[in-house]
């Protein structure tokens, strides 16, 4: 096995079994906030134990190991085809080792060949940059939370949402209401205002690469993120929809250009089992740094 493959198997293992530190911090904070002995606090305590157990046993945090999304930043001229081939092998290997569940199904035949590799699986997003560094980030996106994502087209008459920031606020909060606890909340929202139907969702997921505690450099978006987080946590949906103070752990929003005729707001929901990691790789494919 090449160095790169070994590194990518380790990236997958760690992503699947170890919750990133920023997310764990938010979960512990929520555990503190919830009233002792409440359904919410007991659910958060079980979640916290689950985090410890998965790490100790080096086993998946959740049995749904999700869609496998790679975000790769490469120097100009880097061989992306070879990277993708190696990553597919790493996925097969990680599946054999039980870091990933046999989780990928042929949509026409319903067949699961047990490899997690197929058309569009895993998914790759390559970006070139002028630097010399190779960075690979990985998100494992669960299905239950993917199902509660939503895309709105503004204006939306039912919600009295116009083509402005207040309209965006209304539809994002509606998505939180509709999701209730069904996406294994407390959740994290990744939102893209603008784009088209495809890029909107795709960009909304890039927001999951941000650290939970970071702040949006765009003042309007920063204010909207804080507002949605606070307002959602006043709705009383709580962990698992059991009621309580923590409905969301974080909100991350970006804006992309759109055509004058369309105004989409695309919302991706990430469950508490927020599996995201990343590595910086050296020229021989070994891990030189962890990114989260």
């Amino acid at each position, binding site marked *: 096995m090449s160095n790169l493959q070994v590194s990518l198997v380790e990236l997958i293992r760690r992503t699947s079994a170890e919750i990133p530190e920023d997310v764990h911090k938010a979960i512990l904070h929520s555990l503190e906030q919830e009233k002792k*002995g409440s*359904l919410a606090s*007991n*659910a958060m*305590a*079980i*979640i916290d*134990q*689950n985090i410890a*157990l*998965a790490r100790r*046993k080096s*086993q*998946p*945090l*959740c*049995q*749904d190991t999700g869609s496998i999304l790679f975000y790769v930043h490469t120097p100009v001229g880097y061989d992306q085809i070879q990277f993708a081939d190696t990553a597919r092998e790493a996925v097969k290997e990680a599946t054999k080792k*039980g870091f990933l*569940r*046999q989780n990928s199904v042929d949509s026409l035949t319903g067949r*699961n060949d047990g490899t997690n590799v197929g058309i569009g699986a895993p998914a790759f997003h390559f970006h070139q940059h002028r630097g010399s560094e190779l960075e690979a980030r990985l998100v494992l996106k*669960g299905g*239950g939370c993917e*199902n509660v994502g939503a895309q709105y087209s503004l204006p939306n008459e039912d*919600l*009295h949402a116009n083509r402005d920031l207040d309209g965006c*606020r*209304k539809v994002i*909060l*509606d998505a939180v*209401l509709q999701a*209730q*606890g*069904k996406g*294994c909340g407390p959740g994290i929202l990744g939102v893209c205002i603008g784009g088209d139907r495809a890029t909107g969702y795709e960009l909304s997921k890039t927001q999951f690469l941000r650290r939970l505690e970071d702040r949006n450099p765009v003042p309007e978006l920063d204010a909207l993120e804080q507002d949605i987080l606070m*307002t959602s946590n*006043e*709705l*009383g*949906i*709580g962990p*698992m*929809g*059991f*009621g309580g103070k923590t409905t969301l752990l974080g909100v991350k929003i970006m804006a992309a250009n759109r055509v004058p005729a369309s105004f989409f707001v695309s919302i991706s929901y990430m*469950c*508490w*089992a927020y599996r995201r990691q990343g590595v910086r790789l050296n020229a021989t494919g070994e891990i030189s740094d962890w990114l989260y």
Partner: protein
Amino acid sequence: MQPGKSVTGFTKISMIELTFPFNENQIRALKVGDEVSINGVVFTGRDAVHKYLHEGGQLPTGVSLRDGIIYHCGPVMLKQADNTWKCTAAGPTTSIREEPYQWQIIRDFGLRGVIGKGGMGERTQVACREYGCVYLHAVGGAAQVLAERVRQVRNVHFLEKFGAPEAIWELEIVQFPAVVTIDAHGKSLHEEILARSRAALAERV
């Protein structure tokens, strides 16, 4: 173990013990919001099993759901050297997909409980009231904690037919934590929280 102290280490004085075979009176006495600790045999079943039973399929010999619990779960199982199975991840899967079938399976097979996540709809709620059954919400995503509560994998049915995640796994569980979110009195925590959160949102937009 001390009474009132769960294996998880936090005090759960209020947890109600449920032990297989589950008795109708005890199930009917449960209320939305009750926390339960489940012990004994349960069977997993998800999309393929529900559709199959709904279409008139028969349970395999040796499987009875009468006074039993079905668990919406696609576990990760590893075969051991001695041919037994070890459960390495066993969290709940989304229950609402079984909404078209669940009421009928409660009625025809005498289920007393359904474990899952995310809640279920009107028809299941009505069936719970009519036939004496409850919906038990486990913590979604807690695959490792819940796998630890599986003491033994006793058997597996329909493994060939449906594949590992969709098979009927016969599990012996101990102190499996869940919350009653649909009771046999016609109440649903999901309905209550939805109504309350909708009202709270209306004041904020």
